[in-house]
Structures are given as C-alpha cells and as structure tokens.
C-alpha cells in the first residue's frame, strides 16, 4: 500500500535536505557551539563563582535546535520556489495545504531529532543525565512548539521575499537577534540595557530555552507553563500568517 501524500512529502523533504552539507549546518554547528562555548566559557563561569557553564548551555543548545529547524523549513520553501520544485509538486497529486504541512512536520522532525542528538551529546560531555520523564516531555514539547513557531516565521518570510540575497540577509540578521537576545547562551539579567531586556522578554527563544533548561534540571515552574501557553498562542498567530502568505505567493520565481 502506498504511503499517504503527507508522508511521501515528508520523506521527500528529509531525503533532499539530509545531504552532508546540510547536516553539518543542522547538527554540526550547534554541536560546535556546545563543545567550544561550553568548555571555552567554563573558565569565566568558574571565575565568577558559578556552576558548570556546559550544564547551563546544553539545554539552551537543545532549544536552539527549534530555530535551526525553522530555518530548514523556510529554506525548503525558498529552495523549492527557486529551483522550480514547488510548481512541479503542485501540478502533481498534492495540494498546497499538504505541501505546507509537509514542510511544517519536516521542521518538527528536524527540531526534535536535533534536540535528541544534542541531549545525547550533552550527557556524553557532562557524564551525567539529570533529565526525568516530566523534564524530557517539557523539553521535547517546547522544542516541538518552537520548531513550528520558527518554521512558520521563516515560511512567512520566504513566501514574501523575491530575491536570494534578501532572503539570506533577513535570515542571518534574524538568527543573530533571536539567538543572542535570548537565554540560550547566558541568563537574563536586570543589569542588561533596557532595550535588550525587552528583546529578551519578547523573544520566543527565551521561553523555549527557559523551559528546556528547567526541564533539564528538573526545576519546572508555573512560569514555564505560562511561557508555553504564550508560545503556543504566538505559534498559532504565525502559523496563520505564514499560511496566508504562502497561499497567496507565486509558486515560482518567474
């Protein structure tokens, strides 16, 4: 029996996006952050009397996988438009909605898979695992939500943008702000400039990193629950916006 349309699209997305070069970016880059930053900044954390920076960073890098998954989703739509496969698939036995959900679910798969690899790497580097069942569910739940949020955001952008340069510039700039104005690499501090504090507070990656970190350390709080509710609401809004932008977009770059 042939697989349903959505499953075939997901298989296709995974197959064309798991070449060695893509995997280096998807898994190698976060792994290098974890190793180099984790050990490199350990001395600073020790000098400040703090605990293990690697233990602090590991859940942040897991959260970072949601952003990486989102960029994969946006890039898939962008590449399919740029290289003609979007139009080709849409004159095939697929609907636009199936294509959209194919990309979103592939992003989700990449986000969860990447987070799992980072978790294994973190446990190997730290030599200990502190994650319980509730913590694990929280980590993977928030990363799943985050993958869909960032997938929607990047889809929204790639549906609107017409040039390769513009798409790449927006992606790089956005990734910089999202990653470094969040609690992925360092904790939130009231001593930060006010503008940065606001950026930290409205950045969904902060919610994802906080929840993943508390889940990893077994200290989940009610705040994490609120953060997930806000993130879910933001995800619904951006999913709607992305869907609208995508359905109205040209299928090709002609």
């Amino acid at each position, binding site marked *: 029996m042939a697989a349903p349309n959505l499953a075939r699209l997901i298989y296709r997305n995974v197959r064309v996006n798991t070449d060695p070069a893509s995997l280096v970016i998807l898994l190698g880059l976060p792994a290098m952050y974890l190793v180099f930053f984790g050990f490199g900044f350990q001395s600073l954390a020790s000098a400040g009397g703090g605990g293990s920076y690697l233990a602090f960073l590991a859940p942040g890098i897991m959260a970072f996988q949601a952003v990486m998954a989102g960029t994969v989703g946006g890039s898939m739509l962008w590449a399919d438009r740029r290289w003609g*496969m979007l139009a080709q698939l849409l*004159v095939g*036995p697929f609907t636009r909605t199936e294509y959209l959900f194919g990309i979103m679910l592939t992003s989700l798969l990449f986000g969860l898979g990447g987070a799992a690899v980072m978790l294994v790497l973190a446990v190997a580097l730290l030599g200990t695992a502190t994650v319980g069942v509730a913590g694990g569910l929280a980590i993977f739940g928030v990363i799943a939500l985050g993958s869909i949020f960032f997938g929607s955001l990047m889809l929204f952008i790639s549906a609107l943008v017409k040039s390769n340069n513009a798409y790449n510039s927006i992606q790089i700039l956005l990734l910089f702000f999202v990653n470094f104005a969040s609690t992925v690499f360092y904790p939130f501090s009231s001593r930060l400039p006010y503008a940065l504090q606001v950026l930290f507070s409205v950045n969904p990656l902060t919610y994802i990193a906080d929840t993943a970190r508390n889940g990893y350390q077994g200290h989940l709080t009610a705040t994490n629950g609120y953060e997930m509710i806000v993130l879910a609401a933001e995800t619904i809004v951006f999913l709607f916006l992305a869907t609208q932008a995508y359905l109205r977009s040209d299928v090709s770059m002609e």
Partner: protein
Amino acid sequence: MKGQGGLETGDPVIVAEQVRHSYDGRRFALDGVSFTVARGEVFGLLGRNGAGKSTLIKAMTTLIQPTSGRLRVLGHDPRHDGRKIRERIGVVQQGESFEFTTVEGNLDLYGFLWKVPRAERRRRAELLIERFGLGEFRRRRSFDISGGQKRRVQVAREFMHDMDILFLDEPTIGLDVLMRRVLLDSIRAEVRRGLTVVFTTHNLEEADYLCDRVAVIDEGRLLAMDTVANLKRLYSGKKTVDLSVGAADAPRFFAALQGALGPAATITVSGSESVLLVDDPKEALSVIVQLAQRLGVQIEWLTVRQNTLEDVFLRSIDPGRESRGGA
C-alpha cells in the same frame, strides 16, 4: 483504445470555452480562448513570447484559475477538482525544476511521489536512463550537470508515472538535435499507446513533426486552429517563390515584377531577395524569366517551394504582412 479514465480515442479530454485570465485585473493574458482536445491527440500551441501559451498551460494544469469562462480537463473543473486532474496528468514546465540529489535519485524520488512501487521505479528509471542517454552522469548531483542535461532529466522524469495527458511547455529548450528527436519520438510512441499531449513550442519544425493540430495564439487570443496540413492550405492555396537578383537591379526589377504579376501576387522584398506568393508558380516563373531577359537583369537564384508552418504562423500573427509587399 481505453485509457485509465475509461476514455475512448477521440473523446474530448480538454474543453475550453471563452476562457479568460488576467493577472492584474487590467490586461488579459488569455482573452476568450475556446478549443477542445481529443484523447490521443497531439495539440500544439504556437506563439511568440508572452502570447499566453504558458498561462493557458497553467490554467489547464490547475496552477492558476481562469478569471472567467468554462474549462474542463478530463471531465473535471480545475476550480473544484484540481487534484482529480493532477493525479492524471504529467507536466514538463518551461522553467527548470530539479531536486538536490543525483540524477537517478531525481527519477526514483519523483516516482515515489507518484506512488510508483519500488520495483517498477527501478525498471522505469533504467529504461529512461537508457532512452534519454543519462547513463554517463546518472550518479552526479543535478546541480553538477549542464543545462541541457538537466532538461533531459526533467523531461525523462515525467515518464516515471502513468498519465492520460502530458503537458509540455517548450520542452526542447536547451536540448541538442539528437535529444530533441529522442524526445519527440518518445512522445510519438506514448501517443500510439493513447496518451494525449499538449505541446507549446517556438520551433515550428517540431510542431510540424509532432502535432495533429496546432493553434496559433497571440495576445491571449487564438488566431487560427486546425490540422497542420489544413492550416497550410487555408493560409495559402498559393506557392512560395524565392527569388534573388543583382543588388543594383533589384528595386526596378521588383517594381516591374509586381506590375507584371498583378495584385493577386504578393512580393516581400528584402534587399536583393524577395519572397513571392503566387497562385500559379509555372506562370510566375515564365513572367519572371521573360521580364529578366527584357530588362537585362541577372537572376541569381529562383526556387519554388511548399508553404511551411512558419509561413502560416507569420501570416496568422500578422495578417497585414501580405499586403506590405514590394517594400
């Protein structure tokens, strides 16, 4: 012969009635297009760049919805039953499209997307690799091969799955002469098995070689539509005479020739060469030779030929062309 949809050869598979489409609400890319295509037919769309050929293909393949008019493909309305249509058609688009994987990976993945079982995918891929000469670069990634090779993969890929109608939007762009012939012959072989083909091209020789009927489209309107042979006859019971004389004598000779042949003949002059359309080529040859002797003009060449599809095409999109003779 019955196809997958239970259609008989000759049954209409595409019916368009007064189809209009506008991208911007002001100018119509399709402006009242009506035609039918029968099962097992090769239907050609001829036209200049921007004439509306690709827009018509997009409408028939459900990528865009007509602004008005009635369109039925395989008995379905593209507005409401797009998927039912798309499940039974194949499309080679004008622009390139390929997956970021190897050539054989492209074929296999495309077959997978079309629910072709694995063993059948392998069999078809080998057949197409052989037929389209993809063997020497079958393991190379698609972005590592030339434009012509990509086009071959793109065309070959479409034969990975079964279909009732194949839409080809200028499929031979970038193909060398040999591959062009391979493609056209492959299409002919599929047509013998009952496939219907809608084919757009700039290349009139291809249309002449392949098409049962052609439609000439310009500015979104169908200007002419018939079998290739009928169109040639319709546009001219006349014959074409190509004539060249010495450059110095050309102006006075062609002016005198127009007078001698009378208004029924048309002469299009370009420098020392001219193309004449005449009812009776024997009589015209006699007049030309006698006039040349009388005026002491040297004829450099003189040939009589059948009208080509190119003549038909040019006269369809520019009917004023004949009356501008003797320029």
